[in-house]
Structure formats: C-alpha cells, structure tokens
C-alpha cells in the first residue's frame, strides 16, 4: 500500500532525478534550467512520466533527452519511466531560469534578452536585429553580429570589438 507521503517522496525523488539531466548540446544547462522539462508526475502504480517540449521543431536532441531522462529515472529506482512530448505552448527563451542564464554566461555564451511580443501580423525586419548584448568575456557592449545563425538552431554568432573574441548569443524566441 502506497501512502500519500510515500507518493510525495517518490515525486520529489523523480523530480530531482529528472531535473539533474543536462541538455545534450548545452551541457552546462539542465533540461529544467532550459525550460524544456515541463512536468514530472508519479502515478499510484509508481510509474513516472516526464514531459518535455522541443526548443525548435527540428531539434535533433529529443531522442537523446528522452533516453537520458529514462536512464536517470531508472537509476533513481523508477523501473517504469516514460517521456511524453508537449507541443503547446511553444518553447520560449523566457523559460530559461536565472540559474540557466548564469550558467550560459559562465560558459561564455551570452544569454537571451526578453522574447519578442506582438499583436497582429508578424512584422518584417529588413535591418539587423537590435539586441542589448554584452560580451560574456569582457563585458563590453561594443559587439557586432557576425551571423544570425550558429552551431545550434538557438544561437547567433557575435564578435566583441573590445577584446576581439567571438562568442555565441542565445536568440530570443
């Protein structure tokens, strides 16, 4: 017989295990800090279901995330661990936690500013996207964008004019 207290403890253990899994492409961030881990629940039968959402439609890391979650949950004692996909609402960089932003900056990756909001049709922007970006290494705001696209779908490439180092910036989405 499983008591409510047991259930609470199981949920806490499951959340701890799932929250420790890191992103395969940004390993300085946990899936929880990235905002990709949306929910963890434990059923009365002890089965765990973790819910994740893709950052981008073509995110190639979803299978790796699922495998990592299942492995860590099993290692925490949950034999029946499953992962489901949540598509709505769509992921936004606003879900990256303060701890996640600090971890990005510490790793030399400029964290995103607030995601754009709009009402009505999406505006066309023919001039470079303006962002308040600072160099994560020297802190200078004298930076130029090299490319709006980078090594992963979520990043743009910048260069610092002060320390001359290139760096990546997580794009607001």
């Amino acid at each position, binding site marked *: 017989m499983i008591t409510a207290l047991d259930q609470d403890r199981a949920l806490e253990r499951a959340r701890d295990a799932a929250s420790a899994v890191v992103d395969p492409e940004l*390993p300085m961030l946990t899936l929880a800090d990235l905002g990709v881990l949306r929910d963890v629940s434990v059923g009365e039968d002890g089965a765990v279901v973790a819910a994740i959402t893709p950052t981008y*439609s*073509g995110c190639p890391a*979803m299978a790796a995330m699922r495998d990592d979650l299942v492995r860590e949950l099993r290692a925490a004692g949950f034999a029946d661990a499953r992962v489901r996909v949540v*598509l709505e609402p769509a*992921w936004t960089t606003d879900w990256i936690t303060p701890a996640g932003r600090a971890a990005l900056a510490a790793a030399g990756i400029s964290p995103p500013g607030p995601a754009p909001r709009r009402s009505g049709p*999406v505006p066309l922007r023919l001039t470079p996207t303006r962002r308040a970006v600072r160099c994560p290494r020297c802190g200078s705001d004298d930076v130029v964008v090299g490319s709006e696209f980078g090594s992963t779908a979520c990043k743009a490439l910048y260069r610092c004019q002060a320390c001359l180092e290139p760096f990546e910036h997580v794009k607001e989405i």
Partner: protein
Amino acid sequence: MPDVRTHEPDDHDSAYSGLLVNDAHWAFGTDFEDPLAGVDTTVPDGVDPATLATYCLMLGDDALVLSQRLGEWCSNAPDLEEDIALSNIALDLLGQARLLLARAAAADASQVPALPDGSPVPDEDRLAYFRDAQQFRNVRLAEVANGDFAQTIVRILLFSSWRLALLDRLSRSRDAVLAAVAAKGVKELTYHRDFAGRWFLTLARGTEESRRRLLAGLAELWPYWSELFETYDVERAAALSGVGVDPADVAAEVEAVLDQVLSASGVDRPVLPSPTGAREHTGHKGRDGVHTEALTELLAELQVVARAHPRGQW
C-alpha cells in the same frame, strides 16, 4: 547499469566538459522516437480524418521538399555563415515536416504506405520515403532545382512569406496538434523571412552582377507564385471545418510583405500572372500530385537508401 561517470566536472575548464560526465548522451541510433508521444491526436468533432490528413500532408510535403533543396547547400554555400544559415533553415523545415507527416498518419492511417511485416520504419518516415512523386502534395515552388545563391534567397523569401502568414492563422486551428505545430513554426519562419528579405535587399542593392542574378532568380520562380494562393478542394474543406486555412485568404497580407521588400530593394514586381488575377484552382499542379521532373530527381536521392532497406533501423 554501468557507471560511466569517470570525470570530475572541474577536471576541465572547457564549457563542454559536461559532455564527458556521462558518455551515454551519445547513444544515438538505438531507437526511433515518436515525435507525438503522449500527444492527444484525436480528430476534432465534425472533421473528416482523410481531409485533415491530406491537408497535413500538403503542408508537410511543402516543408520536406524545400528542406531537401536547402540541404543540398550544405558545404556548398558561398561562405560558412550562409552555409550554416541555410542548414539551420532546412532543419527547422524538416522538423515541421516530421510533425506534420506524423500528424497526418495519426489522423488517417490508410494514407501511410504499407511496408513488409516487422519493418520498424515509423509512419512519418514511411510517408517521406515510400510515396512516389504523384503522391506528394507540395507546391511546385518547393521542388524547382537549385540555381545560384540569389535564386535560393528569392525562393526562401517567397516561400517563408507565404507560409508564415498561413501558419500564423493556422495557430488558431480547431485541431490542437496542427495549431501547436503552426504556432511553433511561426517563430521559425519569422527569422527565415527576415534572413531572405535582408539578403534580397543586399543583392538588389549590391553589384550589377548580384542584382542581375537576383532578378534572374525572381523571373525563374515567379511563374510558381500564383499557385501558392490557389485554393485546392482539400484546403477549402479543411478551412470550412475550422482546421485549415484557405490560402486565398492570406494573399493580400503576403503581397503587402513582398511589396515592402521589392520597394526597399528597388525591384519591380514581375509582370507574369500574380494572385491578384484568377485564384480558382485550375488543376494539374503540385497539390494535385502533378509535379515537374525536378521532384522525381529529388525524391530519388532522398529515398534511395530507405527503399533499399525497408526493414532498416538506424
């Protein structure tokens, strides 16, 4: 389970030292994943499942075919930044295609090609790899063979301006899966369109040679523009039942965006038929499964490995 934690995090000062914490991250290729695992794919009340599935195939095939074309640029683009940009855009479209084909299969399994018993190939891959050209429902703009970089910029501008407007409205679809896929797609298409619009402007106002190439690309692709706004019967039925969007309804909005780019670039609108003329569907186009030879060639390359190994797993 073997313990593979062999490195302390502070062994390295590299940002990627975390990769070494647990090498099982790289256990790719052992299993397929269902991109709609746990998602409720019940077809909404009053919606014909076959109509919903075919509608999803249309939007999915548009993305799949253009993704393949853009993927051809990988390692061939004019510079590294543009190579990465085109591959990023191709990946976004491939992701949209995968979700849409999976949604089509979940709505109407009868449209999924049958494979030998025991084949592990998931439904969306069966749709991508085991249909012939006449079963593809994409608009022909997506399939035209690649020319130079300028032609690709024109294609992305035309395609993403149209698709962005479509998906923006589709994010209010009565089908919750389609609405979610569309809402996510809008975020991606926003920067696809910005990328193409900025390059269009740059090439138009660059050198005589860049402008000449841009205008040639526009002239080559313009005959496929009006097809984007023709209403096919499945699109009409999907729109009437509240799950789809009639492409004719977005024509004015998309034309306004295109005019903004053309005007900033000092480029006149080509004088071939445009959607301001007859918009009634006239048959024998991409949505009917009538394609150019270019699609057959594209599919041969896309499908050859999967077809050689219908029981294959990777």
